[in-house]
């Protein structure tokens, strides 16, 4: 079978429609992941082991199991207990929880990397705990986190095709439906690959920039 440019232009609008949903799911998923990861990171630092232990186990469990099965779980099991979600919402929650556990590790590492002396100095100069966090710890902890978080953001973008398995009409699903109705797989599947490759390569360049900008705070 030959590559057919006319067919490419014919299916392009449908694929771009799917790409919009892909980007929407990525952005919403990233917001959920950033917030959920913060909650996990704080809970895991809790002095109460009855909170810290189960939260740690939950995070390990999520990281050790496939996103696809987690999506199925959210999409098929929750309606049985009365929680009905649209495919996109289920997908965003799935992505958010899965990558939230990764974001939590980034937050934890970022906070732990601020030397103890900074804390002690902040407390010694009579700053309150709140002031110590806002003016001393977080300004040092956040910049090194940014490239790591961006890395997971790109990883999450590449995982969004999985949402097609729970009937979200994103890029991959649009390509599949085009392919199934026209019996031509070569163009839709290749185009999906090209879209992802192009966006990933651009993101990698942006990531390198972020790394240079933020990675070495102490050298500035």
């Amino acid at each position, binding site marked *: 079978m030959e590559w057919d440019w006319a067919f490419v232009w014919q299916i392009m609008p449908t694929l771009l429609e799917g790409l919009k949903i892909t980007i929407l799911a990525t952005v919403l998923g990233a917001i959920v992941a950033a917030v959920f990861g913060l909650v996990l990171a704080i809970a895991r630092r809790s002095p109460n082991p009855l909170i810290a232990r189960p939260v740690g186990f939950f995070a390990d469990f999520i990281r050790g*199991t*496939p996103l*696809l099965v987690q999506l199925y779980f959210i999409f*098929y*099991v929750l309606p*049985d207990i009365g929680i009905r979600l649209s495919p996109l919402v289920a997908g965003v929650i799935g992505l958010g929880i899965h990558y939230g556990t990764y974001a939590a590790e980034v937050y934890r590492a970022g906070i732990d990397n601020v030397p103890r002396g900074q804390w002690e100095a902040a407390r010694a100069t009579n700053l309150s705990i709140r002031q110590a966090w806002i003016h001393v710890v977080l300004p040092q902890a956040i910049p090194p986190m940014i490239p790591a978080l961006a890395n997971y953001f790109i990883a999450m973008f590449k*995982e969004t095709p999985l949402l097609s398995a729970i009937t979200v009409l994103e890029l991959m699903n649009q390509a599949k439906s085009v392919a199934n109705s026209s019996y031509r797989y070569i163009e839709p599947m290749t185009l999906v690959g090209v879209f992802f*490759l192009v966006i990933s390569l651009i993101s990698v360049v942006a990531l390198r920039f972020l790394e240079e900008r933020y990675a070495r705070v102490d050298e500035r």
Partner: protein
Amino acid sequence: MIDWTGYIGLILQGALVTIELTLMGSALALVMAFAAGLGRLSRFAAVRALATTYIEFFRGTSIFVQLFWAYFVLPFAGITLTPLQAGVLALGLNVGAYGAEVVRGAVRAIGREQHEACVALNLGRYQRLRHVILPQALPLMLPTFGNNAIELLKGTAVVSLISLTDMTFQAQVVRAQTGNTLIPFATVLVLYFAMAMAISAGVRWLERRAARGLDGVRV
């Protein structure tokens, strides 16, 4: 009341397929990781360019897209793969690209003086790699390889979408036949987690073995 023993048996059959895929995928990934990782350190520009293209391509698109491409597009090029072959190929090449960066990073982390000492001792390129560089680089690679193997295990769930009867596929079958959702999905989640735990325990064991005899060489 549903007779669960048959259905659990079905899921366990799927678990065997998942394990098989993970092992074969990891084997291919390991080969590709070393080939491409060392390729990026080659003195020939063409080899470096080839390895870089491979790594960027497979890291830039997702495993899902690669799998569908291998399964649906390659037949048009005259290469027809069974779902299992397509799964192993896509998983191995994808995770191999991530592993290649680990190999490269670990080899580069070995100090210059080690290379210089090899030159001074008149070791050939192959001898240098085989007897001096890799034995020291291997323990550095193992923890990340363990994570990559767990990523590969998680990636195997995707092959259920090209009708390979792995654990996730069987969970869907059980759901369709019984109408129960909690038991099949909770079971496979626990099984996946158990496999991931087994991988990290295995890697920790390997790490201890690989570090043996290196006491005093590195801190």
